């Protein structure tokens, strides 16, 4: 019954999405940010005066962050090879998703995000195109790129660029997973160094999550990775092959699973404190009885969308203390949108040169702390906690200073004020645009 209602609801949303997209023809647009009262204003916004602005930047390219909108611009880049749950649909078909992401960037973080689906031939072509686009942006958000290509692309871009490169499917998801786990461990009285974790699914999110958990204090030996072939153990036949095809997963195979457990997902889950599953979107992927074999007060993150690997109530009935999913209709939604707007607001405000796992751990701690007194059904904030984004932004910006990555150092209070003002002014502009009808009301759609 649950899945039928869910299916009907999904079908309705799908229909509305197409109808509305046909009506609005795009979810974002660019607007001037300077006053234009008469033609004479063009003398400084455009020719002849603008040439001197160009010369200033030619003399010092870093001035592009001060004299143009670069400081607040983010490119959302994808090759469309792994779009949501629909797979390799190509760059054109990725655009609606990238526009949606740009809208969230703008609404929640006050960021001017530009969707850039790229028609590229291979991973090195992707990297060279993004590198070529660097002068226009203060940061790049990589999106919906297939694994393991996404690891290579992110690593190369982080090395080659002088602005942050972030892959939300890896870093954003890992960050909110860690935030949720921090509060889950507070509730259940656990310490990272003594806690055992089974990471079910070894794609972009969980590989990044493993690294972030280790950075935050989890012992690599206490982490067990599971993929479609079972537990990632050091004697697995495909390990040598992974060394070449997916060195990121190979690294974790060498570092994790201190007991060298072998076999099925069930063996990985037995006697562990935490499961973080980003695997098959099918309830029953994690069997109810396996939860009973976990340690007391088990923590279960079943993050597959649209259907979790185990229904939350089934996990709770079988001994889980805390359950999180990727869905908004259950408590504890593990949602990247709680992360990337604040993280980018902070990186942009600091004019950051990059981002790393230490900054991400601080962002995750800030998100966890924001909840205040966490409860089993409230381990992460809600997307409507508007104050979250400037708080995360100021933490990230300050962490960038501490890491020596900030071009524009400021105090945490200074960054907080800046982020609040930008986000608030932007939201007001959106609200006014709706009030005045410049953003049209939703059309009537026949149900």
């Amino acid at each position, binding site marked *: 019954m649950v899945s039928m209602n869910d299916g009907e609801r999904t079908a309705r949303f799908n229909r509305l999405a197409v109808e509305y997209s046909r009506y609005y023809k795009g979810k974002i647009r660019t607007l001037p940010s300077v006053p234009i009262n008469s033609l004479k204003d063009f003398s400084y916004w455009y020719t002849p005066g603008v040439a001197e602005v160009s010369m200033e930047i030619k003399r010092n390219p870093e001035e592009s962050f001060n004299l143009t909108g670069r400081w607040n611009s983010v490119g959302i880049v994808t090759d469309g090879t792994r779009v949501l749950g629909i797979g390799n649909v190509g760059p054109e078909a990725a655009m609606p998703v990238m526009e949606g992401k740009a809208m969230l960037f703008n609404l929640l973080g006050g960021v001017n995000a530009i969707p850039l689906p790229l028609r590229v031939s291979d991973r090195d072509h992707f990297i060279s195109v993004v590198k070529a686009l660097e002068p226009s942006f203060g940061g790049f958000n990589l999106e919906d790129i297939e694994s393991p290509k996404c690891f290579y692309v992110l690593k190369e871009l982080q090395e080659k660029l002088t602005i942050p490169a972030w892959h939300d499917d890896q870093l954003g998801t890992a960050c909110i997973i860690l935030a949720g786990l921090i509060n889950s461990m507070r509730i259940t009285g656990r310490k990272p160094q003594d806690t055992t974790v089974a990471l079910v699914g070894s794609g972009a999110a969980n590989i990044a999550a493993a690294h972030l958990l280790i950075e935050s204090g989890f012992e690599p030996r206490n982490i067990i990775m599971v993929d479609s072939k079972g537990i990632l153990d*050091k004697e697995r*036949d495909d390990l*040598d092959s992974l*060394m070449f095809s997916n060195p990121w997963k190979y690294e974790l195979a*060498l570092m994790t699973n201190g007991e060298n457990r072998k076999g099925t997902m069930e063996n990985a889950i037995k006697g562990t404190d935490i499961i973080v599953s980003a695997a098959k979107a099918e309830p029953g992927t994690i069997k109810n009885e396996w939860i009973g074999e976990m340690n007391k007060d088990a923590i279960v993150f079943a993050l597959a969308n649209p259907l979790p690997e185990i229904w939350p109530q089934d996990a709770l009935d079988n001994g889980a203390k805390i359950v999180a999913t990727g869905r908004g209709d259950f408590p504890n939604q593990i949602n990247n949108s709680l992360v990337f707007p604040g993280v980018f607001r902070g990186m942009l405000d600091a004019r950051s040169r990059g981002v790393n796992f230490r900054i991400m751990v601080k962002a995750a701690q800030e998100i966890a702390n924001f909840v205040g007194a966490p409860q089993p059904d409230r381990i992460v904030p809600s997307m409507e906690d508007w104050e979250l984004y400037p708080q995360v932004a100021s933490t990230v910006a300050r962490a960038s200073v501490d890491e020596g990555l900030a071009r524009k150092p400021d105090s945490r209070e200074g960054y907080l004020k800046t982020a609040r003002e930008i986000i608030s002014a932007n939201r007001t502009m959106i609200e006014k645009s709706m009030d005045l009808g410049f953003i049209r009301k939703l059309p009537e759609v026949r149900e």
Partner: protein
Amino acid sequence: MKESSGSVRKAREGDIDQFMSMIFRMKKLNGEFDPLFRTREGDDAPIRDYYLKCINDHEHFITLVAVKKDRIMGLVKAEIRERISYEPSRELRIIDLYIMPEFRRKNVGNMLLSAIYGEMKKLGIKIITAEFPSLNLIALNFYEKIGYRQITSVYGKNIEEDSD
């Protein structure tokens, strides 16, 4: 890099089961680099016999294992080759070098090579070479990092396949 406690010794007949399991893993990986390295299916006995011969024939082969208690961490098997036209007249060619994944990055490869250099000195052999699939860039980096350089190239084809 963490050091791995353990020692290197000559391979023995009793090592053969662990030894073969490692050889199969390595040859299977080679098969992923080039179809000319596709591994044989079926009876493993001739392969096992060959490696037993290598272990026992100290005149033509040096076969060492790095061990920790009763576990073989890694192995190296090298052939002593005549160089009829060149000086010096003998070289040692590493054919198989494999470290089990759980013992990687723990200096086991260097332990094995140090031991093999020791054996070479005893035999008066001064030149060592190593062969591996061209696309195995990890092996390439490993050898280059410790001072080896490319001195020959081997090209191959299957003459029953089209070659326009």
